[in-house]
């Protein structure tokens, strides 16, 4: 037996290259569209070209007669096939019946009307065009404020006020705070509709084996087990005969948490035609029919004392819901309410949310999901308050931050912030730019007639979603660790990574806990027939919740490893370190490979110990985690064109302990790109008829590589107390920090022209109009 006890290299905290990347960059990964089953048919979906219409009649005969077509389904066929689920519950919530295919009305452009199944995707698309639908076009309403105005067309005729729900939350004594305030600042702030635009569109392959009563569904999802449980309920199938696989998933950003009509519809179709069927969403469909994000109109009031102490916040949110409620649609603005105080101490808050139906695609979780809206609002309001009080934006923030000795800090909205040092990232960002000098440069630039801005955002966010009572489907996570007879380690996690890199970070955790090389570890996920059960990947929960479940599964395994080690070494007590059990009395040790082999061969068993080396752990988090950070942005506005140049972008994020700095930086970069997208370019614009006029990449401005500034990333580290890894989550931080930092910077640049607020996106024309109007005034 081996006697040399050298501790192998450790992996946590190091810049380990992503183990996912070789298959991705060589184009050999298997996405849904790469799956081809024998005898498979293809579906195309005919969708409504109108925002609102009654369907007088549908003639499917020409499509049925078309070449290669085997079946056509309309709303009549799927009427009893179940509904698209909404998992969020709010008191008095009006949930419109959401059939798989339109019944007698269509409610938004893209609403599925019929499904055509044919021998290939081209024939299916051609045949779909042959279906004749007689529409009686009605007036649509695509703007949430217009939808709530009296006399607006009713999106759902049974609810003429277009109100799905109202939601109220209050803490402290708001009226007193406002009555006693020295200053009150009010502002209407919008957070526009956005299209998540995952690189891979959605897609489904459904395969029904009637003799086995077995259904397999391959789908591009963030939550395969949720899809399985919901499909089982909806279709009345036995859950243990249903297998859902999320193969390689090319991004989701929240848009693939939902269980969509097409997933249920393809299962239904496969069961009808007794053949596998594939549907792949086109990019155009992705724009129209995958959930959108944001869609807020917010009315803020903030009360303060003359010295800058914030004493109260009032917020009214009008949430544009779209026509239907998808899985989490109504819950998203309630997350904004939870995070409305930001990092500030005030205990007096009042929020009222109105959920408005519109003839648009549903909104739902998009990277940040409710928190970017809340952060954008409070960070804009704090800047406006600072301007009102003629304070520096840094000073007002430092004055109002929750103090370091106040953690765990119970907020006015009922949360408990776990840990924090809110001034630290702000001070670090100021240090990076030499803030005093930068303000002096700005004063010089202004004297020279330049429009230079410095914008700060200090954000807080709610991650590691989350304690089960706070979620619609459970908030725990699971992991199984199997040490194979050869000693190789297989990890099965309940999360479903789709770009986050947990095949790497989880291998780092397992390698260090077991003291083996990272190449010994394989991390599997995304297949309900392999993985015990899981909640999935969203809400910056993968590592903080799923990684913690893995950590505990590894701890569960260690005593068993030691029992086997002790037996093999004939020792009373051994230590387990560096991949070996060692008897310190004799200095003899036995490797984990030898232990694994013995545990499966089982010629002898330690007392009270079963063969094999596996452990499964389901972990329920006691709280969310609350990462925070400071982003600082320097901009310059071109007076002649209104173009905005980002001169510097500093991101200081505190996500607790860092398992892999390279992956954390990647998350910050990607998040900032999407936050900049909202601040400067992206907007899902519906016209008055409910037509999405930015429904192509030629009109919807996604951030491109050449449009990105250099992002100077750094970190402070304040571990969470919620999990033993001390990790908080970082998937959404960049998105949350970026938009207020950029807008604050541009408002600061234009403040000499009397500007105090700008709504996103900050298009050059919008800026030019302000600059030229001001020039007209001074000329």
């Amino acid at each position, binding site marked *: 037996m081996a006697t040399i006890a050298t501790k192998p290299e450790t992996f946590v905290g190091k810049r380990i290259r992503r183990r996912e990347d070789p298959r991705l960059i060589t184009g050999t990964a298997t996405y849904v569209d790469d799956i081809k089953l024998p005898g498979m048919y293809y579906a*195309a979906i005919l969708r409504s070209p109108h925002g609102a219409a009654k369907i007088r009649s549908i003639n499917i005969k020409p499509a049925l007669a078309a070449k290669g077509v085997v079946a056509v389904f309309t709303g009549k066929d799927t009427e009893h096939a179940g509904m698209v689920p909404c998992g969020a519950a709010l008191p008095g919530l009006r949930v419109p019946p959401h059939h798989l295919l339109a019944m007698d009305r269509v409610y938004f452009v893209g609403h599925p009307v019929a499904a055509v199944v044919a021998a290939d*995707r*081209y024939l299916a*698309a*051609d045949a779909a*065009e042959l279906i004749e639908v007689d529409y009686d076009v009605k007036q649509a309403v695509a703007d949430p404020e217009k939808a709530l105005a009296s006399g607006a067309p009713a999106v759902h005729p049974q609810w003429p006020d277009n109100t799905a729900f109202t939601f109220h939350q209050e803490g402290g004594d708001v009226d007193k705070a406002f009555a006693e305030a020295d200053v009150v600042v009010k502002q209407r702030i919008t957070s526009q509709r956005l299209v998540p635009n995952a690189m891979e569109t959605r897609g489904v392959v459904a395969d029904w084996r009637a003799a086995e009563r077995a259904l397999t569904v391959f789908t591009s999802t963030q939550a395969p087990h949720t899809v399985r449980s919901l499909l089982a309920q909806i279709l009345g199938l036995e859950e243990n005969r249903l297998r859902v696989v999320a193969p390689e998933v090319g991004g989701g950003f929240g848009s693939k948490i939902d269980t969509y009509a097409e997933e249920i519809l393809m299962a239904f179709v496969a069961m009808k035609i007794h053949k596998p069927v594939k549907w792949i969403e*086109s*990019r*155009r*469909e992705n724009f129209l029919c995958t959930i959108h994000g944001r869609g807020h109109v917010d009315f803020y009031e903030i009360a303060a004392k003359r010295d800058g102490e914030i004493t109260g916040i009032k917020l009214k949110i009008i949430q544009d819901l779209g026509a239907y409620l998808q899985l989490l649609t109504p819950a998203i603005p309630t997350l904004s309410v939870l995070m409305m105080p930001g990092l500030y101490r005030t205990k007096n808050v009042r929020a009222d949310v109105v959920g408005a139906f519109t003839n648009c695609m549903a909104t739902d979780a998009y990277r940040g999901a409710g928190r970017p809206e809340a952060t954008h609002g409070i960070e804009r309001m704090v800047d406006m308050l600072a301007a009102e009080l003629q304070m520096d934006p840094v000073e007002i923030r430092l004055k109002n931050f929750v103090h370091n000795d106040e953690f765990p800090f119970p907020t006015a909205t009922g949360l408990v912030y776990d840990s924090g040092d809110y001034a630290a990232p702000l001070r670090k960002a100021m240090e990076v730019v030499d803030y005093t000098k930068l303000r002096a440069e700005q004063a010089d630039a202004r004297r020279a007639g330049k429009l230079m801005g410095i914008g700060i955002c200090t954000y807080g966010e709610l991650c590691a979603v989350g304690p089960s009572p706070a979620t619609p489907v459970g908030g725990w996570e699971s992991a199984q660790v199997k040490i194979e007879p050869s000693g190789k380690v297989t990890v099965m996690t309940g999360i479903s990574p789709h770009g986050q890199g947990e095949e790497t970070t989880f291998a780092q955790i397992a390698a260090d806990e077991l003291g083996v090389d990272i190449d010994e570890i394989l991390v599997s996920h995304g297949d309900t027939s392999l993985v015990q059960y899981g909640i999935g990947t969203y809400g910056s929960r993968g590592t903080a919740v799923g990684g913690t479940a893995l950590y505990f599964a590894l701890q569960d395994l260690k005593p068993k490893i030691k029992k086997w080690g002790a037996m093999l070494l004939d020792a009373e007590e051994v230590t387990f370190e560096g991949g070996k059990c060692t008897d310190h009395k004799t200095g003899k040790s036995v490797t984990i490979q030898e232990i694994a082999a013995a545990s499966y061969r089982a010629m002898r068993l330690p007392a009270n110990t079963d063969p094999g080396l596996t452990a499964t752990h389901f972990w329920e988090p006691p709280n969310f985690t609350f990462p925070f950070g400071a982003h600082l942005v320097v901009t310059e506005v071109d007076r*002649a*064109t209104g173009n905005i140049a980002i001169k510097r972008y500093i991101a200081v994020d505190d996500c607790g302990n860092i398992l892999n700095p390279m992956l954390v930086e990647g998350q910050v970069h990607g998040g900032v790109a999407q936050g900049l997208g909202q601040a400067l*370019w992206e907007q899902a*614009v519906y016209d008055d008829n409910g037509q999405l*006029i*930015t429904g*192509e*990449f*030629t*009109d*919807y*401005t*996604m951030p*491109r590589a050449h*449009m990105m500034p250099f992002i100077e990333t750094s970190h402070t580290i304040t571990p969470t107390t919620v999990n033993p890894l001390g990790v908080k989550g970082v998937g959404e931080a960049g998105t949350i920090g970026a938009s207020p930092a950029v807008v604050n910077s541009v408002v600061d640049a234009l403040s000499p022209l009397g500007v105090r607020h700008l709504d996103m996106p900050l*298009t*050059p*024309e919008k800026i*030019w*109009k302000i600059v*030229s109007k001001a020039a007209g005034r001074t000329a």
Partner: protein
Amino acid sequence: MISQSFEYTAPKTLDEALGLLAEGAKPLAGGQSLIPMMKLRLATPERLVDLARLRDLNYIREQGGNIHIGATTTHYEVESSTMLRVKCPLLSATAACIGDVQVRNVGTIGGSVAHADPAADYPATLQALEARVVLKGVKTERTVAAADFFVDTFTTALEPGEIVREIVVPVDPSGTSYQKSYQPASGFAVVGVAARILKSGGKISQVRIGVTGLSNCSYRATATEKALEGKAGSAEDLRAAAALVAQGVEANSDLHASADYRRHLATVYAERALIAALAKA
């Protein structure tokens, strides 16, 4: 995003291609506009004739003080041609502003000008260069000035059955510059201004300005040209001339820029193009 079915032919000779086009087929060059339109079913041609594979339409050669550029020469080939960079730098600089790398690798000069997108980059430059477009039919060949070739939005002097065979630009001694405001999503020009300036005896002797993106069709801004000729080219001269660039033009308006903003941008980018061109004149 799936086109209707269509017949595809890749002929080996230009004559063969022209024969098929005369029968009503639609020409395909780089496909950077046509293919997306087909995928959205906004264009539903039944027969496509692929011109991009015709070797005898791919060339850049100098001949008698002019440079002839074959229709299937890609934007990248125009951008990177050493000859063009030296002898007609305005054209290669313009090509470098088109779309993105992928588009420039596949898109062709002939396809772009024949498509006549009102926001395309080449038309401004071809107007400023007083370029000529050679059109070829089965039995015909004719040469049309750029000013006459671009007629309206997506409309040119091409007759049915004709293709753009080549573009002819002069060997250009002017100081030149192409300046554009990018539509951020598509990379097309919100407005683009191409400027050429010749100096003689310390004064501006000749100016040519081409404008794209502002209206239904590219054009020569003759008022700006006249305002500068004979001037010394002071900052004030340039500004005053640039202010005339959108004179009498009905400006487009869309989500990305209102008519007023477009007109304003035209003057800004005209001034920038004039300043840069004069510095090189």
